[in-house]
């Protein structure tokens, strides 16, 4: 028996639309749940003061610093490294077994649980290189963790740049590097930024890899060798050890709003960039 295409079309719309609505509902539920519980404690005082009594009272100011500084340093290290690697892989090497192995390797690395990176960072950066629990060790670990994502998304973005643009650039007497700089990177930028945004999101929300490498000190850091606590770690400790549910949710609400703001700003910047290039 054949089903009338009009019915299958209708069925497809219902299933696809239903799935989308379900996803949106779940997402909205989580966000509203956390904001509802957390927002009442969030105020200027909460954001700008130090925690007291292990976080039972007071604010979360040092953890905001930690949340900003770890991902920023991590991305400052990982972005150029990742983008250059992907440029090299896609523009300067021919497709060989070696590049396939490298690509397979990065895919595997991208799928490794973050706690493994945490352990690696602990053994290598904290112990072997004697960095101790520090901003440096934490950022380097996060950088290693997000590197595969940045390489892969950048590579996809670079490959998506039409081949004819390369041809035109070369035919006008450009070198490989000039072509990369003037044509390929600007056109791949939206894709690269997406990868960086994903990585920032992952770094901000990361707990396992950070606890092992940056520690969980509540003091405000003054050097790269000081330990810091991020909001995600703070939330984890407050909730896990039953220190303060209200402050845990307050921290979570702040975290969600921060991620939202970062994403919106990035999209706004990117749209402006695309509009300007026309």
């Amino acid at each position, binding site marked *: 028996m054949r089903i009338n295409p009009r019915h299958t079309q209708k069925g497809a719309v219902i299933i696809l639309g239903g799935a989308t609505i379900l996803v949106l509902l779940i997402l909205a539920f989580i966000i509203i749940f956390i904001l509802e519980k957390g927002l009442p404690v969030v105020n200027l005082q909460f954001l700008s003061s130090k925690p007291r009594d292990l976080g039972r009272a007071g604010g979360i100011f040092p953890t905001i610093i930690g949340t900003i500084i770890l991902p920023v340093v991590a991305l400052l290290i990982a972005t150029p490294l990742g983008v250059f690697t992907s440029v090299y892989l896609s523009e300067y090497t021919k497709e060989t077994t070696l590049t396939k192995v490298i690509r397979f390797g990065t895919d595997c690395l991208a799928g490794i649980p973050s706690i493994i990176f945490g352990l690696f960072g602990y053994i290598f950066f904290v112990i072997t290189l004697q960095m101790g629990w520090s901003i440096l060790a934490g950022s380097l670990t996060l950088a290693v963790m997000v590197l595969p994502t940045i390489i892969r998304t950048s590579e996809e973005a670079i490959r998506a740049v039409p081949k004819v643009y390369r*041809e*035109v650039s070369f035919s*006008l*007497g450009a070198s490989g590097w000039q072509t990369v700089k*003037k044509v390929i990177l600007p056109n791949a930028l939206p894709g690269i930024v997406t990868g960086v945004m994903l990585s920032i999101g992952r770094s901000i929300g990361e707990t396992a890899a950070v606890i092992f490498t940056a520690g969980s000190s509540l003091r405000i850091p003054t050097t790269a060798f000081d330990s810091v606590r991020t909001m995600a770690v703070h939330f984890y400790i407050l909730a896990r050890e039953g220190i303060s549910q209200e402050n845990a949710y307050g921290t979570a609400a702040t975290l969600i709003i921060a991620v939202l703001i970062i994403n919106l700003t990035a999209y706004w910047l990117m749209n402006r960039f695309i509009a300007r*290039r026309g």
Partner: protein
Amino acid sequence: MSTKFNIHNFNFYFNGSPVLKDLNLDVTSNEILGVIGPAGSGKTTFLRSLNRMNELEAGIRTEGEILMDGQNIYDPEVDVAGLRKRVGMVFAMPVPLPMSIYENVVYGPRLSGISSKSRLDELVEKSLKEAFIWDEVRDRLKLSGLRLSGGQQQRLCLARVLAMKPEVILLDEPCSGLDPISTAKIEDALTVLKKEYTIILVTNNTKQAARVADKTAFFLMGEMIEVGLTRQIFTAPAKKETHDYITGRFG
């Protein structure tokens, strides 16, 4: 009349199979050489051999030599980017880079290190005029090149090549997607430009070769069957294959 290219026993292979076979041809300066022939006869490959664009492809091999002003362009010493600045190319599909009209035109000059605003402005105006498109875009040089019509885009691509001040311009079926009026504009531009440049025009449209080319070469299955004055090729070709092709009797 001086000779721009001397091509001696030139062979070209893609993955071992011959695409250009034992090519011998002289290209005269300040003339338009039309290149005609059926699909797959090696016209594009011939054109891209002259600015070494074929080298972007994997698995290619060449034999023989192509002399440009007496120097073999396949000599290992030759700076390929420099060669491509001397031998500009307009592709079959118009491909403006995704940037403004102005930036498209100054792409080549900027690569050569020209950065003075007045110098670039001057080049933009001159090149766009030479490509017969200045009047249509003079008020909107900041507009993205992608927003132009197909015919305008192709003339922009011509202007972009002219701005490099090349010695030779290669055109690969530049009018294949264009309407008669845009085609006429390009042809007009070429007839003026040949005073300053050497032009090689690959075309699927034999009438176009008859209209604008000084000499015409006929390619068939990787071989150049014959070359001669356009009038002679179209009225009294020496070879039967040429006659069959231009009279449209080719199978």
